[in-house]
């Protein structure tokens, strides 16, 4: 039995075989072959198998994220079947009498160089597509089998870290847990694990050892320990613990359908944070009262170019219709900082968290902002949609936003397109600046939602992606709680509701404190809804002693 220690980001236990998520970085050897015909057949077989894999990915993406996002997998199929690409590979095999891998590698280099040398930055990026399709075929030839769709049993996945574009391709029903070498508790993989309700451990030094592949593994999300080939005692101890936890989750089911009312009668709204339209199932399953944070950036992250108004409209409409009259708060594009999108061509920044991001991009590139706003307003005719703007620091930003909103509404009116004129407009309070002038901002908007992740990083001047700072980062810092109280008081004085949509909202140790401050709404990832409802129902606000200030 080997024990590896890491940092747990979700308290659950996973038991299953370990599989590595590997990117195509194969060593390609060059060697002469005996039969050109056989080698060409070998290539064609691998290529066809890669094409059928892409077909499956296309069908899956079509169901989960819609045609616009799925199209890339169809384009990759076309590229793999492109005559020039295939002729090049087959010619190299024939004329040089060498192996398919080398021919593919050479062809891939040639074509990607052709794209890389083009003037247009978007086209230069297509070099990655060529590498991507070539790697897919090489994986087949070299037997680097990492195909979740064909994998029969669910596995625990280990990787250095996973990018959003990689996790979107994962078949979530085949994933028991995540182990990563890098990452922080706010990295994409950690957030994904929490939204999926599965065990996940980060900073697991030593996990990427090839000899562990396929071995029985346990993740203990309560301690952060990982056991490779656990002994019988460990296996039975953790299996029992796993069963106990699952029983607790079953008991939580009793809280479905119950209102979130405290012992002393205050109603708290509990909404869901979602990062993809595919999370809708989890939102409904966990009985959320609404969507408190719809992270619209996934639409942009999954697209190879700017998503059109119609593509966005159909996604927002689906969300609003699924929520059937419950509040659906869509946050406008929040990219920059840790979320980068190639086709936006954002320059490299030394300090991206303090840089060109979120509303700052939207206000300087109004064409992108207006496309999104038009799509959201059009969807507002199909449900109870509100709009929320991220990264606000000043009153004049809100005034500019409102001017653009007005323009969009006027356009829609002229075009006779229906929308809800009374759509609530709110802002995220995630900068100390916005918190400190929240009395002024409250007069301009319909609600506040406090983004505690960014508010914490900006208030404490600590980069939340920096692993070295985790020991200094106190999420319960008095400064944060004071800012939350200030925002809440200022909101209430001006008659608007105040919610929290950051990680603090789901921290049950802090629920009493937040309720005693007067928070009206908590928006958390879907699996946290029922535990939070239980906590709210068991809380008596009148008996909470105010210990913070």
């Amino acid at each position, binding site marked *: 039995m080997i024990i590896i220690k890491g940092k747990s980001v979700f308290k659950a236990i996973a038991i299953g075989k370990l599989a590595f998520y590997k990117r195509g970085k194969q060593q390609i050897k060059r060697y002469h072959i005996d039969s050109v015909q056989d080698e060409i057949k070998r290539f064609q077989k691998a290529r066809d198998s890669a094409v059928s894999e892409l077909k499956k990915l296309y069908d899956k993406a079509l169901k989960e994220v819609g045609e616009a996002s799925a*199209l*890339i997998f*169809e*384009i990759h199929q*076309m*590229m793999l079947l*492109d*005559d*020039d*690409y295939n002729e090049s590979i087959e010619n190299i095999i024939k004329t040089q009498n060498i192996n398919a891998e080398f021919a593919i590698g050479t062809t891939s280099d040639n*074509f990607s160089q*052709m*794209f890389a040398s*083009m*003037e*247009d930055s*978007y*086209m230069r990026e*297509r070099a990655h*597509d*060529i590498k991507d399709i070539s790697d897919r075929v090489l994986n087949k030839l070299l037997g680097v089998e990492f195909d979740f769709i064909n994998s029969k049993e669910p596995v625990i996945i280990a990787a250095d870290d996973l990018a959003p574009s990689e996790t979107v391709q994962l078949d979530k029903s085949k994933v028991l847990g995540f182990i990563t070498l890098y990452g922080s508790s706010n990295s994409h993989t950690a957030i994904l694990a929490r939204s999926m309700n599965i065990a996940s451990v980060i900073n697991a030094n030593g996990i990427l050892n090839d000899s562990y592949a396929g071995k029985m593994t346990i993740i203990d999300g309560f301690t952060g320990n990982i056991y490779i080939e656990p002994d019988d005692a460990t296996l039975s101890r953790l299996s029992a613990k796993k069963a106990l936890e699952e029983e607790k989750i079953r008991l939580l089911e009793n809280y479905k359908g119950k209102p979130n009312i405290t012992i002393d009668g205050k109603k708290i709204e509990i909404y869901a944070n979602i990062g993809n339209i595919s999370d809708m199932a989890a939102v409904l399953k966990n009985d959320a009262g609404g969507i408190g944070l719809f992270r619209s950036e996934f639409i942009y992250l999954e697209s*190879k*170019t*700017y998503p059109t108004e119609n593509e966005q409209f159909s996604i927002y409409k689906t969300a609003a219709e699924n929520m059937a009259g419950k509040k659906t708060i869509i946050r406008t594009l929040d990219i920059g900082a840790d979320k980068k999108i190639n*086709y936006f061509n954002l320059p490299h920044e030394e300090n991206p968290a303090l840089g060109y991001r979120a509303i700052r991009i939207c206000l300087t590139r109004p064409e992108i902002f207006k496309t999104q706003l038009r799509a959201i307003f059009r969807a507002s005719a199909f449900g109870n949609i509100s709009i929320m703007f991220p990264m606000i620091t000043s009153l004049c930003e809100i005034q500019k936003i409102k001017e653009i909103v007005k323009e969009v509404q006027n356009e829609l009116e002229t075009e006779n397109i229906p929308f809800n004129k009374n759509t609530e407009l709110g802002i995220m309070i995630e900068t100390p600046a916005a918190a400190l002038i929240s009395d002024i901002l409250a007069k301009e908007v319909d609600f506040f939602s406090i983004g505690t992740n960014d508010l914490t990083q900006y208030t404490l001047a600590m980069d939340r992606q920096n692993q070295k700072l985790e020991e200094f980062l106190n999420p319960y810092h008095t400064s944060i709680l004071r800012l939350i109280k200030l925002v809440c008081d200022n909101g209430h004085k001006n008659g608007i509701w105040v919610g929290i949509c950051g990680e603090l909202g789901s921290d049950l140790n802090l629920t009493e404190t937040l309720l005693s401050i007067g928070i009206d709404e908590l928006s958390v990832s879907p699996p946290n809804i029922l535990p939070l409802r239980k906590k709210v129902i068991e809380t008596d606000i009148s008996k909470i002693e105010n210990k913070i200030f």
Partner: protein
Amino acid sequence: MEQIKYVIKDNAGIHARPAGLLVKLAKEFESSITIEKDGKTADARKILAVMSLGAKKDDEITVKIDGNDAESAANKIKEFLENNL
């Protein structure tokens, strides 16, 4: 033979998405279909060739269609260009 001249209006030019859709459309017809830009010619059935033209906004492209179903192909392609590019 049919010939279509078209100036691209889409901001991103013939990027991956429209190139893919164009290739799909071209494969529906028997006729040979080529796209020319600045002296470079690409077979409209080959996605890498179409993309490598690097056709951007305000570039003029010429589509040449030759074969039995050239006329209906030309109509469809014209419609496609106007709607997507």
